[in-house]
């Protein structure tokens, strides 16, 4: 019998692994210095580490661990972190997500802390600041503002016979048709990806009707405003002005914009930086931004942006507040703009020469005066996703157009059922 040798090895192998496990557990409990966990998304996540170096120098003994999340998974991951009791100290949060996380009691109310800090709330645009206030208390500090505007190819528009951006829907449609005639059947006039709901929501907000009715208890899809938006939006695909594709099917959106696959695109401030970086030098004078055209003239857009929020379960709230305060300083906001192209939330930061003189940013400054918020309801994200999914089915011919409003209302009402119950219960009790 090969008695002791093989088994001794296998036993010690197991022992070794158990010891490794024990080591890891103890090593993971840090005792030296304080570590702040900061979650940021997309490009902002990429630059956060650079931005925060100065913060770490200012606060020796404080280290910031930045976790970068892709936008597509960020909402999911934040919810997962909440469900798993693994939330960070500070996170960048889309301001449309704040009501949801407040409903979950995940965020720390900041009214008191801000009052005692150098953060100057009067330097923020009231409309944007309002998106951070849920049920009367402030839960986030705006980090950058966001809205959706038109990005377009001036040169291709000129070739189609137009010298300025459209101001209303009719003009816009005429321009798109003209461009389509120019570029032919293989190319398109505008990109409206099927897996994005923001363009449609922006157009719907322009109608001036509430997107949910009765205090956010029921969907409002069966409204004339939505009907008009639906018709207009679908006409883009029906007239082959927009390709019926999702982002996944566009290999590289900047390459395609450069080769004229589409001439109009609805996107946000970060695209300014991306366009400057990724489009070839000879194409730089060819692209421009413009505010969204509305049904009868310049229209509204989504009051978006990201805020910095502190989680209730954080064990380093004071340090977290210092981080938020640091990122809210006008100089830091300006550097943030230079690195990302994101528009600073603090108005005083807009005096930065590169921003003040940037021709592309003008459309955003203009649009920011006409922004409207989406419903401040936790379930909004889910309802918007359903809108996106139903629209995709309609465009792909999977669902008939007739009955879309009813279908969406049915889905929205189902999603809001629990909210109705909770609101009723609160009203009673």
């Amino acid at each position, binding site marked *: 019998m090969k008695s002791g040798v093989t088994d001794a090895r*296998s036993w010690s192998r197991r022992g070794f*692994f158990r010891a490794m*496990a024990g080591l890891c557990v103890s090593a993971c409990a840090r005792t030296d210095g304080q570590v702040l966990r900061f979650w940021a998304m997309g490009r902002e996540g990429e630059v956060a580490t650079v931005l925060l170096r100065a913060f770490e120098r200012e606060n020796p003994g404080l280290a910031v661990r930045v976790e970068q999340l892709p936008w597509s998974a960020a909402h999911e*991951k934040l919810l*997962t972190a909440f469900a*798993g009791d*693994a939330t960070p100290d500070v996170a960048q949060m889309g301001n449309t997500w704040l009501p949801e996380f407040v409903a979950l009691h995940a965020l720390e109310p900041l009214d008191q802390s801000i009052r005692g800090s150098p953060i100057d709330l009067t330097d923020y645009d009231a409309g944007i600041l309002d998106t951070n206030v849920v049920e009367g208390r402030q839960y986030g500090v705006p980090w950058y503002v966001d809205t959706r505007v038109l990005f377009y190819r001036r040169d291709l528009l000129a070739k189609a016979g137009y010298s300025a951006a459209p101001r209303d829907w009719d003009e816009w449609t005429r321009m798109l048709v003209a461009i389509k005639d120019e570029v032919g059947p293989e190319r398109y006039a505008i990109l409206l990806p099927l897996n994005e709901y923001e363009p449609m929501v922006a157009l719907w907000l322009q109608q001036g009707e509430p997107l949910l009715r009765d205090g956010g208890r029921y969907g409002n899809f069966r409204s004339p405003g939505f009907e008009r938006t639906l018709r207009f939006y679908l006409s883009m695909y029906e007239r082959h002005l927009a390709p019926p594709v999702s982002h996944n099917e566009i290999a*590289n959106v900047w390459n395609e914009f450069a080769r004229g696959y589409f001439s109009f695109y609805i996107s946000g401030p970060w695209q300014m930086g991306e366009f400057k970086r990724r489009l070839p030098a000879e194409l730089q004078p060819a692209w421009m931004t413009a505010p969204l055209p509305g049904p009868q003239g310049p229209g509204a857009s989504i009051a978006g942006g990201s805020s910095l929020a502190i989680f209730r379960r954080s064990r380093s709230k004071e340090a977290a507040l210092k981080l938020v305060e640091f990122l809210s300083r006008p100089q830091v906001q300006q550097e943030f703009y230079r690195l990302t192209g994101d528009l600073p939330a603090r108005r005083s930061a807009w005096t930065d020469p590169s921003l003040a003189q940037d021709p592309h940013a003008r459309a955003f400054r203009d649009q920011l005066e006409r922004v409207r918020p989406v419903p401040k309801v936790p379930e909004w994200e889910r309802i918007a996703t359903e809108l996106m999914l139903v629209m995709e089915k309609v465009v792909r011919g999977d669902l008939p157009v007739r009955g879309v409003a009813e279908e969406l209302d049915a889905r929205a009402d189902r999603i809001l059922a629990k909210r109705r119950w909770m609101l009723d219960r609160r009203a009673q009790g």
Partner: protein
Amino acid sequence: MRRPLSYLGVNIFLALAALATLFPLAWMVSASFMTAGEASTYPPPMLPHAATLANYRLLFAEHGIVRQAGNSLFISLLATGLSLSFNLSAGYAFAKLRFKGRERVFRLLLGALVVPAQVTMMPLFLMLKEMRLVNTYVGALVPWLASVFGIYLVRQYALTIPDEILEAARMDGAGELRIFVLVVLPLLKPIVVTLAVLTFLGSWNDFMWPLIVLTDHHVQTLPVALAALSREHVQDVELMMAGAVITVLPVLLLFLLLQRYYMQGLLVGSVKG
């Protein structure tokens, strides 16, 4: 009898089949050495114009893939160790140790195989949340502790151990634990390796549960990190291929080295009984 056409036919089909199975993997390796954007050209290239390690460098430097490879390795090794610890003794006991209710319990366990593991995922997540084990290595290991298949595999093999050897050892006065460690385990060596290989591969390739329980970039395993990377960098083909190579290569190598044991485990678990 043996027509040359048949010879040709069989071997051509086999060659085509091998080409079909190996080509995607070969292209994966090839594309990982291409420069950024090279793979998205028409006609699609098979070989890189000028092979470069840039994608790998990017993964190592900026995307922390070393950490994730380490996570995969650590978790898989631990899962293997734990699985062996729990399943060897149980499988042997079900095969060779007589105790009341043995057959009934074993049949119940087999019944559990029918239930898909995903049913347990939601409550398991909540359970781990209460124990503050979400986003930890321990959380990722939990499903590997309770593997009915592992017990089944070991039992099937252990049944072949002649009772006489065990009786002889008992008559020599050895206790059950001594018998297990000194007599049985050496005899179980082939199945130990098989179970180790199967568990390691299974754990390395596991996707759904690590996706659910490991949310932090720092603790993610390679498959989950790769999926996240693919959603974020859907444009960067070459980078993704490099990530895929890093994920697939270790298990492919392990398989090539220990094929025999892997196939054995496959068969023991399936053909007999």
